[in-house]
């Protein structure tokens, strides 16, 4: 568990720094990439740190559906 948590933490740190660097670039795709990176971080925390990977399939479906709807909602408003 500790090795997986450490790997997850390193990935989350890399994704955070990447988001902060990517936002300085120009282009319409930048917003989409930032939102996708934040969705990946959200899933990393919920599935690895909060151990949702061990939960019933319904909980996994709810959390994945929530972040997909949230990101799609944001993209629809921005577009």
């Amino acid at each position, binding site marked *: 568990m500790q090795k997986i*948590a450490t790997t997850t*933490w390193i990935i989350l*740190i890399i994704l955070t720094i990447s*988001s902060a660097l990517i*936002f300085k670039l120009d282009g319409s795709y930048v917003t989409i990439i930032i939102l996708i990176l934040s969705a990946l971080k*959200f899933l990393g*925390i919920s599935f690895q740190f909060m*151990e949702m990977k061990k939960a019933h399939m319904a909980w996994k479906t709810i959390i994945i559906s929530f972040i997909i709807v949230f990101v799609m909602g*944001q993209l629809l408003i921005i577009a």
Partner: protein
Amino acid sequence: MQTQQINHKNFYFPPGGILIWIIIFLELLTFGIALIAMLYYGNQDVEGFNSSRLKLNTTYGMLNTLFLLTSGYFMAVSVTALKKGDKRTFNKLLFYTVLFGVLFLCLKSLEYYEKLSEGIGIAYNTFFTFYWMLTLFHVIHVVVGLVILTSVYFGIRKETSNTTIEDVEASAAFWHMCDLIWIMLFPVIYLIF
């Protein structure tokens, strides 16, 4: 400490318990709707939101994200240590969890101090109304989380502690919820506009 085997594959027993997960989803929904509203208003006033966003320090936002992620990491490994019965390691890792939570609050306080010194309060404009409301509401959750974790830290040290592993998992789930909320706030407030 009471330990018992919980089958998390059972729908009614997700890690931390079903009640904390109902709270987590309600919180995520509340913040999610507020952030969608912020984007909607941002679309009505793109230039205003962009110039307001430029008044924020993105480095502070990124550092705060790193603090919360690191705190969340220590929380996750501390729960693993406790499940193995290693209370000493649990307490040490829980201390680091609280420490990084406090660092988050210190940096947030500095950011708030700078904004207030510049005369940027909650009524400055629509962007900053959302900024203050959302970040302050999140800070309140962080403070509540720190109080819960401090209570667990001292409670578990007692010889006659009646804290169960599910209590600790529920506290951890609440703390991770603060991470999740911040992960949603960070790109919308500091990066997108």
